[in-house]
């Protein structure tokens, strides 16, 4: 009874702290919303219309190509916002400047003499001679994802067009289709299904670092811990109360996130499934242990805060919470590999059938467990030595 | 005629319906320690902050070194040293740097080593402010108040929250400042502090000065040699019989205080009365009157009521 009462007080003290309340309960929700606004558009690009400038020539072939682009620029589902200009040096330079300023996404330039070269190519081909192929120039903008997407689209269109030309000449083409199979994810990719378990890990991680690591250090530094230890309450009861209070907190966090993921973003993940509950529990134990470890190594609140902040971002981002990271270069891959979050995130996603884990399932269990054992042993030793 | 360095007349500051300072007047003699004594919320800090220039009075006159001013401005601030009730300094500066920074602000200043010696922080000169103990921080705050070698020092509850040893140290510093001819204006709710340090005490309550004088005469005004203090349940019958002994009953702490010249017979009377009314008497103390009693007899409340 006493234990539960103390646990209530410990929970209240965190929930009423404005900073803790914000970062542990409100912020994860804001973050989930932000991520849902940004990432689905990166992974599942919807209809996009590219601004394209077509620098044309007078000639039969140029006009054929021009017509193809025109056709793709009308209607509701048009691919291009097209502007067709004569190919002059002045126009080209102007358009390149526009491209640089991101006013347009791509320039397709039919160079001078293109039509003559094409005609030449076909005539020589009839005679059985292979002429050098005429060139179409394309200008794209570096570091710009729209421009590069536009290029791929145009390239694909021109490749198809080329096949049509070849057919016209009378050759028989192989009908080759192409398809993509993505591995690493299972079935169709849905970012909410991907991110929901990630955010759950994130909130537990935040609670581990700040709600336990920093909070416990603060209890220690402010003398509250000592104050509790000098009462008749056994040490073990305090520890149990503290753990209960953190479980309250984590349950509240996970429930909030789950409600939003389920009802606002319609995730198909079932939070009551065995694999979700199992991995979530492992996450809670592992990242809480990390919090206890942190509290036992830091001398005061300011050092605990510094350690938490330094650990916070690399572990978060390189644990694959927000986007898969297994393919990063070795310069930072070691951070991915020693990071318990990596295994927790891969494990839970594999178990839920969202994304295949690059690590065998047993590894996703063993590494977090090793972390738990290490952290708890270390904390236990410190605890014994300090007698606090 | 005494030389008054500061005179305040009919000072008023209202915050809506709250009369924080309600017509306060006093005069401070040069070279003296002048104390505003009163419980929390009596208006001491508001009064002192008006004279420090932090607040603008609604009404009233301030005569600062013989010159009448509406409000305290930068010219006056050069001559005063202030220790605020709650001062937070920049945590990542050392003691010496903090003193040096404030020293720069003033045209006239003391040597830093001299100040460090007076506040006994020589060995902490290069310690960050954030690493100081409560007492050390308070001494530094007083050190800052004296860095410009001021004529008047305003110390707002300089010993609140300090342990007895640290409080004693602070008192020593204040007495040394007084020896150097400084005028000190002090607020406190510790009657021992007021009694020990002050040359002149103004007792404040509800924004008004309800009594002033030097501590000895204030106590003498109670006109009794000894006090008997007991813990007892309130009983109107019993109080009636004791009327002659000017009983003061502090209902919050259930303490009855009687003034007497004859300890023996008063004690006998008290015991008899309690037996008659079948009341239990506990914790009998016989002592000399102090400023606390002055306040209690004036207001019926204890100075430490809120604490």
């Amino acid at each position, binding site marked *: 009874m006493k234990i539960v009462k103390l646990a209530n007080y410990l929970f209240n003290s965190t929930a009423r702290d404005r900073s803790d309340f914000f970062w542990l309960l409100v912020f994860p929700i804001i973050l989930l919303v932000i991520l849902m606004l940004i990432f689905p558009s990166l992974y599942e690009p919807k209809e996009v219309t590219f601004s394209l400038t077509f620098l044309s020539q007078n000639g039969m072939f140029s006009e054929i190509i021009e017509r193809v682009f025109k056709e793709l620029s009308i209607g509701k589902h048009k691919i291009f916002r097209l502007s067709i200009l004569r190919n002059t040096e002045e126009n080209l330079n102007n358009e390149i400047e526009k491209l640089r300023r991101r006013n347009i996404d791509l320039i397709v330039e039919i160079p001078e003499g293109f039509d003559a070269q094409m005609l030449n190519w076909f005539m020589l081909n009839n005679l059985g001679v292979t002429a050098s192929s005429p060139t179409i120039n394309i200008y794209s903008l570096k570091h710009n994802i729209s421009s590069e997407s536009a290029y791929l689209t145009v390239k694909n269109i021109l490749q198809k067009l080329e096949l049509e030309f070849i057919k016209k000449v009378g050759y028989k083409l192989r009908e080759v289709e192409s398809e993509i199979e*993505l591995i690493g994810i299972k079935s169709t990719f849905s970012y909410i299904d991907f991110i929901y378990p990630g955010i759950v890990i994130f909130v537990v991680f935040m609670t581990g670092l700040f709600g336990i690591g920093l909070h416990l250090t603060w209890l220690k530094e402010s003398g509250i811990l000592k104050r509790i230890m000098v009462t008749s309450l056994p040490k073990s009861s305090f520890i149990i109360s503290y753990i209960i209070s953190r479980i309250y907190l984590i349950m509240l966090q996970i429930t909030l996130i789950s409600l939003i993921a389920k009802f606002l973003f319609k995730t198909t993940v079932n939070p009551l499934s065995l694999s979700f509950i199992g991995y979530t529990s492992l996450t809670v134990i592992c990242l809480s242990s990390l919090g206890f470890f942190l509290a036992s190594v830091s001398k005061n609140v300011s050092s605990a805060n510094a350690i938490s902040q330094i650990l916070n971002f690399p572990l978060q981002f390189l644990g694959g919470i927000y986007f898969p990271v297994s393919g990063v270069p070795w310069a930072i891959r070691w951070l991915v590999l020693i990071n318990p979050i990596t295994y927790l995130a891969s494990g839970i996603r594999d178990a839920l059938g969202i994304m295949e884990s690059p690590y065998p399932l047993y590894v996703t269990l063993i590494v977090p467990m090793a972390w738990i054992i290490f952290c708890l042993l270390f904390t236990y030793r410190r605890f014994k030595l300090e007698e606090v | 005629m005494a030389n008054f360095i500061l005179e305040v007349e009919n000072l008023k500051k209202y915050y809506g319906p709250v009369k924080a300072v309600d017509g306060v007047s006093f005069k401070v003699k040069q070279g003296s320690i002048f104390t505003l004594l009163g419980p929390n919320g009596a208006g001491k800090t508001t009064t002192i902050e008006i004279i420090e220039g932090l607040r603008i009075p609604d009404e009233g006159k301030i005569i600062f070194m013989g010159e009448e001013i509406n409000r305290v401005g930068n010219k006056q601030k050069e001559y005063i040293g202030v220790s605020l009730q709650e001062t937070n300094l920049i945590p990542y500066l050392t003691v010496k740097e903090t003193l040096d*920074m404030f020293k720069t*602000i003033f045209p006239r200043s003391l040597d830093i080593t001299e100040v460090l010696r007076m506040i006994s922080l020589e060995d902490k000169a290069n310690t960050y402010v954030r690493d100081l103990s409560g007492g050390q921080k308070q001494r530094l705050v007083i050190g800052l108040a004296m860095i410009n070698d001021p004529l008047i020092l305003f110390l707002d509850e300089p010993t609140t929250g300090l342990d007895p040893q640290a409080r004693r140290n602070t008192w020593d510093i204040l007495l040394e400042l007084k020896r150097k001819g400084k005028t000190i204006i002090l607020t406190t709710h510790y009657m021992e502090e007021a009694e020990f340090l002050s040359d002149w005490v103004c007792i404040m309550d509800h924004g008004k000065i309800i009594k002033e004088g030097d501590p000895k005469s204030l106590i003498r005004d109670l006109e009794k040699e000894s006090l008997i203090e007991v813990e007892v349940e309130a009983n109107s019958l019993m109080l009636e019989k004791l009327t002659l002994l000017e009983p003061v009953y502090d209902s919050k702490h259930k303490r009855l205080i009687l003034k007497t010249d004859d300890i023996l017979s008063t004690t006998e009377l008290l015991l008899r009365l309690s037996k008659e009314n079948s009341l239990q008497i506990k914790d009998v103390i016989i002592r000399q009157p102090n400023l606390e009693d002055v306040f209690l007899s004036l207001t019926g409340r204890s100075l430490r009521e809120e604490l």
Partner: protein
Amino acid sequence: MKIIWKLFLTTIKIFYRDRMTFFFTLIFPFIFVIIFGFVFGSGSSGENNKLLIGILSSDEELYKIVNSIEGLEVRRFDSIADIRQHILKNKLDAGILYENNKVKLILNFTTMQRNPFSRAIGDTIANHLAKSKTKIDKIISLNLNPIDPGEVVTTGLGYMVPGVVAISIFNGALFSMLSIFSYYKKRGVLKRFNVTPIRGYQFIIGMILGRFIVTFFSATVVLVFSQLIFRVQFNISWSLYLVTASTSILGMMAFGILISNIFAEPEVASNVGSLLMTVMIFFSGVYFPLDFLPKYLRIFGSFLPLGYVAKSIRIATGIENGSISSVLNISLIMTLIFFVLVFIFGNKIFKAE
């Protein structure tokens, strides 16, 4: 003048002693550029990332075709399972199978994330296969000219650096104003100064000047060190950098002053600051492209000042071409806002009640 100088020096000292500010202004931006640079950065800029493609050793025709395509490197495997396993473990970027006139591109999800255009490989190979029996290699050649947005040729990582400098400026400027106008005010530090004859403008100038220099220095350190660490070379116009960085700092400081005056509680103000930072990191187009975002979000993003700061620094470092006059206009606006706000709230700082 002496007072201003002293406060100026003091502010600089405090900055380097306070580990948290130091971390957020100097170290934090680096962490970000490393993480995002490695995860997202390499894809779009055509740097030395040849894609490793796995095919079955039995398919000789496919081997020839894939080998002839620029940017692809072929590895041969004995079984499909083997290819898949390698892809899953990120030892291969993709696999290609050809069977029954069907090209199947097996792609690792993380490869697609790093290089969204890897999806097009399948189409290209299908195109080659379609005409492989015709003796016609190609009719039309495509000649791609990637235009650098600026004078400087740089990698994706290099392109990101000005954004990181912007983050450093934002952090340094915003949080320093929060500490003066919110933390110092609430904790009574300002009150302590107010009982001395110091004048408001002396205090403000000294403090802000110190923070200004510190922030400018940090941002420049981030810029210079990023060049070294990521081996990118900018063509920095130092005079333009001086203008853009300085005015950006002032602009972000104005932001900080505003926040600390809206949210009186230092804790709340600092939380609001951190939240704003998160929103800016995501929506200002510094780390994540905004191109595919819904329109309302792109409009929202275009109102976030961090994007402008990043852009003007890109222009100053020669990574992006842009009109200098528009940069100067933005700079002027930010400076004006700063001076107006400092005048309004700075005057209030030492006012008696």
